[in-house]
């Protein structure tokens, strides 16, 4: 049934997805300084190999299977019940793929201004950390990867960032560590309390989830310990202020990765270690999260509108977009949670691409201030057209990827959280306001002297963009392959919530008095 059982010696693909970037990082770090052309080549090879494997993983993923696939489990520290336990399901699959393809593109898109070797090594370490976080099914291993991620990101921001990079990197690191401290306590408490139910100590997520039976009040405390860490990571209002600084000050590749996959560690964590591990507590506290999510949508959009720095504007738009994802998670319907899962990927693609554009604009003009830019569409029409497509995806125009996720989230949330959804949908108007206004100020109008020589999109940049643009269109028109793989896992998750609470998912339908089909109906029922 599982792919690991198909061959006599199954290839441990999930472990490989983590170790290839690590090996790449080590090689890059060990390369002699006398050969400056090698680091990039090695880094690209490692990341492209990872990308290829993640795509292969997607291709061989069993579509209708709800549980974990390609599971790899090896005892690590027996005394504490810690094991190297990896697995992938419909929720994590596309995040793994996104992590796989985003890194080589980010490496290709922009060259660092100095010290390419450590820069590439840190990027690869980052990829390994993110991969590990998405794949771990052991609380201890997850925590290790979740924390490891901070280190390369800290150095990338502090080492290759912009003018306020040290402040931003420190803020990012301390803020996230503050959240993680709660999670560490919660994690140890969870294992300690669970071991009484299970009979032995284990950090295994699946075992704890299946066998532990937390009292409602205990579960709620533990859930909040985890949730605070994820809420910082997402970030959920009002814990979001590290994000504009970190996004703005990070080098382009860092921003792309930060927006593309790292924020998803938070929303993914809420699904995997919040809802899955503590279904009762997460359902019980849903109104809090729904409210914060809706505040984030409106508040983030308003704050984005008034930004004067283009990169900060995109950063605040992430606060709004992630608000939609949180809304969908805590609405607990198949549509809203599937929408959240697919929107994690969509946001990674669209916002990742937007950060690439902002990076390229900075490389050309050495500024991110909107007021310094003007009339770029006249001098760089292809650049502008590509930006336009990505922008429309971020605005949520149907036919492009952003709409599918937003629509599913809102449609599903409307069933269980009607008035939150009515307000959240206003965010769709605001998204048009801040992005179109920014576009007008940057691309429309007559270019002044400084902007007249703005270079057109380069071939290399165009090649990097192609996968982004392709995904934006494809996922908007034909999201079915993704949705088909996501939905079984989401349904299983909602089933867990229904088992642990009195919640029953509404499934609207209508009994139509259709005279032409009336005789057929009883027969069908008889057959069933």
């Amino acid at each position, binding site marked *: 049934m599982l792919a690991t059982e198909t061959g006599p010696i199954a290839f441990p693909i999930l472990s490989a997805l983590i170790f290839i970037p690590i090996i790449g990082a080590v090689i890059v770090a060990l390369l002699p300084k006398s050969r400056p052309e090698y680091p990039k080549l090695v880094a690209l090879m490692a990341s492209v190999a990872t990308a290829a494997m993640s795509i292969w993983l997607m291709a061989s993923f069993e579509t209708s299977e709800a549980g974990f696939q390609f599971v790899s489990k090896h005892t690590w520290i027996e005394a504490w019940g810690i094991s190297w336990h990896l697995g992938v399901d419909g929720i994590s699959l596309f995040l793994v793929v996104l992590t796989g393809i985003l890194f080589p593109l980010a490496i290709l898109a922009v060259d660092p201004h100095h010290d390419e070797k450590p820069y590439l090594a840190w990027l690869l370490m980052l990829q390994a950390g993110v991969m590990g976080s998405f794949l771990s099914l052991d609380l201890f291993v997850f925590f290790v990867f979740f924390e490891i991620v901070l280190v390369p990101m800290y150095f990338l921001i502090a080492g290759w960032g912009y003018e306020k990079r040290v402040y931003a990197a420190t803020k990012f690191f301390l803020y996230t560590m503050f959240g993680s401290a709660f999670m560490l306590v919660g994690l140890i408490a969870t294992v300690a309390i669970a071991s009484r139910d299970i009979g032995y100590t284990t950090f295994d997520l699946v075992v704890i989830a299946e066998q532990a039976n937390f009292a409602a009040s205990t579960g709620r405390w533990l859930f909040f310990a985890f949730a605070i860490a994820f809420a910082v990571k997402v970030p959920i209002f009002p814990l979001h202020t590290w994000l504009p600084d970190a996004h703005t000050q990070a080098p382009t590749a860092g921003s792309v990765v930060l927006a593309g996959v790292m924020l998803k560690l938070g929303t993914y964590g809420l699904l995997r270690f919040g809802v899955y591990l503590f279904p009762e507590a997460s359902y019980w506290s849903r109104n809090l999260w729904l409210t914060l999510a809706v505040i984030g949508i409106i508040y983030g959009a308003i704050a984005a509108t008034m930004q004067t720095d283009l990169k900060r504007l995109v950063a605040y738009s992430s606060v709004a977009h992630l608000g939609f994802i949180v809304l969908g998670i805590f609405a607990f319907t198949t549509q809203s949670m599937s929408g959240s899962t697919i929107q994690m990927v969509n946001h990674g693609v669209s916002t990742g691409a937007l950060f690439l554009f902002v990076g390229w604009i900075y490389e050309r003009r050495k500024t991110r201030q909107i007021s310094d830019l003007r009339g770029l569409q006249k001098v760089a029409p292809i650049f502008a057209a590509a930006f336009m497509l990505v922008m429309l995806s971020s605005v949520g125009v149907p036919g492009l990827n952003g709409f599918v996720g937003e629509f599913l989230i809102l449609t599903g949330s409307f069933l269980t959280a009607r008035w939150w959804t009515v307000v959240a949908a206003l965010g769709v108007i605001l998204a048009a306001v801040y992005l179109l206004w920014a576009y007008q100020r940057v691309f429309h109008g007559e270019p002044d002297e400084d902007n007249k020589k703005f270079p057109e999109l380069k071939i290399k940049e165009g090649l990097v963009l192609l996968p982004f643009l392709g995904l934006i269109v494809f996922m908007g028109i034909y999201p079915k392959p993704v*949705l088909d793989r996501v939905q079984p896992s989401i349904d299983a998750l909602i089933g867990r919530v229904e088992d642990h609470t009195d919640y029953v998912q509404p499934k609207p339908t209508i009994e139509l008095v259709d005279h032409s089909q009336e005789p057929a109906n009883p027969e069908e029922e008889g057959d069933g």
Partner: protein
Amino acid sequence: MADLVWLIPAFPLAGFLTILLFGRRLGDPKAGYLATAAVFASFAVAAAVYFDLLSRPEEDRQTVVTLFSWVPVGTLQVDLAFLADPLSILMCLFITFIAGWIHMFAVGYMHGDAKYSKFFLYMNLFVFAMTILVLGENLLVTFLGWEGVGTCSYLLIAFWHTRESAATAGKKAFVTNRVGDWGVMLAMFLAFSAVGSLSYTVLNEGAETGTLAASTASAIAILLLIGAAGKSAQLPLYLWLPDAMEGPTPVSALIHAATMVTGGVFLLTRINPVIQASYDWVPTTIAWVGGLTALFAATIALAQNDIKKVLAYSTVSQIGYMMLAVGSGAYVAGIFHMVTHAGFKALLFLGAGSVIHGMHEEQDMRRMGALRKFMPITAATFIVGWLAIAGVPPFSGFWSKDEILLYTLADNTPLYIVGIITAVLTAFYMTRQIIMVFFGEARWTSLANAEEAPEVAEGEPPVETHNAHGEFKPHESPPIMWIPLVALAGVAMLGGIVNMPKLFGIPSGAAYKLEEWLHPVVEFGEADISGSWADNNKYILVAIAVACALIGIALAWLVYERRRIKPWEPSLFANAWYYDFAVTWFMGNPGREGFQAVADFDATIVDGAVTGTGVAVKATAGEVRKGQTGYVRQYAALIGVGVVLLLGWFVVIRGIL
């Protein structure tokens, strides 16, 4: 043949993709011809599907073509599917027909523009989206087209993007439309939560069988009305449309007059059973929105001097009539007026484009006059359009407007009076336009040095400086531009035959063709007025309508041609009742300040708490650190003090010793 309905959007899509890839190579004018051919090919398919449906019995005139499953999640199963039925095919027929002629006109009009092929790229994309809108089998596919046309409209209004006003107008159109789209999205959520489907068939059937509660039906209808008010430029969301005139004139003709702006009326007609199943105040609200918009926009049109602005407000007003029809349960009349309006308004806009072209980009009617001598074809066709919109029989607008007023009188007398007043105003402002542009004395002789000419003051006759600095002569447009004018003039003249009443001895076999055709779609929602006073006295209504048109024309003639009456163009009308001004002021001042306050709140309070915590920790740590001096004697002294204190506590408080 109806199975091939997907070819209708496929042709413009193919045109779009071809121009996307090879547009620059095709260039001017080949890209334009290619785009035109793609649209006419669509029209041919639409015609073929029409004849296929026509050959079937009435109850079978419906085919659903499913391309693929678009958004399937759990009980929500949305297909990318098209519905070929009398309504959608009728829409496709007139959309592609008129769009074809407008494309052809644009081949000439856009000649020489630096972004020539890009213009046709957007135009074909628009036709693609518009046909998707009308062909959608469910609300989501319609919404795909709905936002698609909105996006194309944005791109085309801001087509000359180096002009700040054009860029702002494009953004304004998109954002205002999004306000309406908020309503459409909520309507979709509500529809799904009520019937578990977004399909029109399911939703309408739920309404017809009474399974859909009246409260839910009312909410869906009102939310879709919000969407329709955005797309169809009705109160209070109309204000993007006049600004949309910043786009090239063929865009104004196609998108902002003939097709896209009727999307709201189409959508409400599509869900007419839902409106029928709503509370009574829902259709009444729709009718009042339409009626008031019609009157409101007509008053504004009285005092505009820009040739396109007059037509823009006139469009808002005419769509108001269509909304009025929808609210009165006169769906057939609403669609009828949509079709005739598409013909004569496209004609008027293209005529205006031809004038602007011939006048070297002049749009101010105060600098025109007497152009009939220089642009005879444009003038003749424009006059046909004028008679059609003014409601002079037998031109097309007369028949459709009369039908709407008939149903309105049967439904709501105050609104009938609103409609009648609007009819007088329409005849008046259109006559004013005709006179200012094509009759009277030539006021453009000073145009050669127009830049130096003083601004024409409000209400005064313009200063004439006789042709001192060079030659200027308006010219007729080339055939590629006037052939579409002639074709559309034919439509404006004869369009009424699609739905003739049984009056004036018209044989019953030729009458009410459109009503017959649309019957299966609007069967449930269409009001039955037979036996009402209005229905029994149709000749009186016709007489009133004709009288209105003639009074309006005569008055304008006296004011602007004979100059017997001083023109009355109050600044309230010229400034659109200051509504746009008020909204813009509100957005720019309190709105903007409010947004800025939120951004400041984020920077100071929310982030301030974070940095504040950091500062506090650092400060506390700084203080505590001072204790760690490193001097052993100090530590020893402190230990000593502690020991003494502890001893004292044990002895004195606990009394141990």
